[in-house]
């Protein structure tokens, strides 16, 4: 028997009850049947636009939000209190995720403090050790968050996540609030920590080039579903699902002039009442007969899975895949 993966998410559904409104409550369908797994030392990137459910997915993995259906398993067993420390999260904005009244050593060792049984001296020593491992200086642990820049604060948040020796970090837009020069520092830190500690990452981001750089596999989300999943370069360099193509065509790039106005560049449909059939049908440039049927995420080629009958040929209709193309000019010349 093969060993169960480090993290497996199985048919996960998250619905929020919204109680305001004239006609009583309605449900927000944030995550609608998401399944994937993450191996030890692996990074999976979750990309999609705002409202696609990627942040809710991350919070459900942590247990920060209640699951409506499905399961999140760690090494094959459902996550419980004892295993909770195995998964930690890095938020987008280190300004609001650090308590301004606590010194850095307390912030970094807060998870250990909650666990209890440590003397302050031990905590300070551990904090200095962790601070050094994320590129801060040991003397920094006596200072307060406001004395640090955005990038340094994100390093503090990373040190805090590492305090309980987790196996997996959920990175929710870890560099989006930072300037590009600082983004590079944090990306390098995350890559080297992963190599040293065999960490697994679930990297949630709208930044396709960041995901391309860091992730081994990528899942593209649309309206709470994965529409395409597979090895990062396969998916991002030769996208199959029409939504993945729409998304990637919109990413600004040096080597490409501005696309002419996309005729159907609409917006995400409401997640209060889910559409029938394919969720992307209304915006899809290739929508045709068969798209009114619910779409399944099925294997397309190699390790890739796609939720589109036109690609996976479930209904006997195929279309040629677009040729792979380089994302940056340097790739073409290399």
């Amino acid at each position: 028997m093969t060993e169960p993966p480090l993290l497996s998410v199985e048919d996960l559904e998250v619905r929020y009850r919204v109680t305001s409104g004239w006609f009583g409550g309605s449900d927000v369908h944030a995550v609608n049947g998401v399944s994937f797994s993450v191996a030890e030392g692996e990074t999976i990137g979750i990309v999609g636009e705002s409202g696609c459910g990627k942040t809710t997915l991350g919070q459900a993995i942590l247990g920060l939000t209640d699951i409506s259906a499905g399961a999140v398993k760690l090494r094959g067993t459902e996550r419980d209190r004892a295993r909770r420390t195995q998964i930690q999260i890095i938020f987008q904005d280190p300004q609001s995720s650090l308590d301004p009244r606590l010194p850095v050593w307390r912030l970094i060792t807060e998870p250990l403090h909650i666990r209890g049984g440590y003397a302050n001296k031990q905590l300070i020593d551990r904090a200095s050790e962790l601070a050094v491992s994320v590129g801060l200086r040991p003397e920094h642990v006596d200072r307060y968050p406001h004395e640090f820049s955005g990038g340094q604060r994100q390093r503090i948040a990373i040190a805090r996540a590492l305090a309980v020796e987790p196996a997996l970090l959920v990175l929710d837009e870890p560099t989006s609030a930072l300037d590009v020069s600082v983004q590079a520092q944090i990306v390098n830190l995350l890559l080297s920590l992963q190599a040293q500690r065999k960490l697994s990452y679930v990297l949630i981001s709208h930044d396709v080039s960041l995901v391309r750089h860091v992730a081994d596999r990528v899942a593209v989300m649309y309206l709470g579903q994965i529409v395409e999943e597979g090895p990062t370069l396969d998916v991002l360099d030769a996208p199959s699902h029409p939504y993945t193509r729409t998304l990637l065509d919109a990413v600004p790039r040096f080597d490409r002039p501005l696309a002419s106005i996309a005729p159907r560049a609409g917006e995400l449909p409401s997640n209060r009442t889910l559409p029938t059939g394919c969720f992307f049908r209304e915006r899809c440039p290739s929508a045709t007969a068969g798209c009114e049927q619910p779409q399944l995420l099925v294997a397309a080629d190699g390790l890739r899975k796609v939720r589109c009958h036109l690609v996976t040929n479930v209904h006997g209709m195929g279309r040629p895949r677009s040729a792979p193309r380089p994302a940056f000019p340097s790739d073409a010349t290399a």
Partner: protein
Amino acid sequence: MSEPSGDVLLEISDLSLVFRTSRGPIKALNGVSLNVRAGEIVGIVGESGCGKSVTMMAATRLLPKGSAHITAGGIRLFGNDPMKLSERELQHVRGKLVSTIFQEPMNALNPTRRIGEQIVEIIRRHQRLDAKAATSKAIGLLRDMLISEPERIMQAYPFELSGGMRQRVLIAMAFSCEPKLIIADEPTTALDVTVQALILSLIKHKAASTGTAVVFISHDMAVVSQLCDRLYVLYAGRVAEAGTTASVLAAPAHPYTRALIRCLPGLVAPKQPLEQILGTLPDLLDPPAGCLFKARCREADERCKAVPPLAAIGAARRAACWRRIEETQSA
């Protein structure tokens, strides 16, 4: 490509500006020079705190009077010094000649009034049109922004629209008085990439068809590369480099510009360390003497103790770096 030859709409020369604070004066701008000619799209790029928004707010006199003080240099906006205009003249310049699109469309719209009323009000304040003509003009502008049911949107309140839709309404408003210059301050930063792509192409097409000049402020080099004819790279309140977009991206001259481009993921193989700019921005309460980038620069040497001028280093290219200036002179 030579410098565009249209009329100069905005000329900023050697502008220095401080914000008085309780901790002392913050030297936000330390000698910014730039110009914008009729009909061109000019990008201003840089990281937070580099002075890109402050420069353009100073140009349109939108900075708070009490705290912001110009300490050197000057601004010519349509031939006038905006600091010397009367309130009435300023209103004319701001509405009729220049308009600004901000990052957060929700903050720029009045939440209690319908979209249509807000557009019509602006049109009628600056143009002699009756309510009916102004309304049909407003509908036409919304249609230009590819808004599918403009009549319905005219009746809507801002909260009923998505962020991308609101930003399109604001772009329609910015173009409504047929200004000569539009300042777009990170107009797509709060939006998703698919919406961003739409907004950028709307700005580009509308500006081209009306001959309006656009100053596009952004932290995103790739966005600027797709939209702008020329660009200025700002660092710590000073122009590091200026030139046509294609030439700057093909061969960035200033070490800061190079680092900004090279630290983007995608230029090295996946998982390889990205080039990083070491250190942090200088403290603008007490900026160091000489080149402001020297503490973070890999090429810095003795010469950098003196402030490098923004000097020509080729056709339509300028850079504030001693090394480049000397290379140009010896070539």
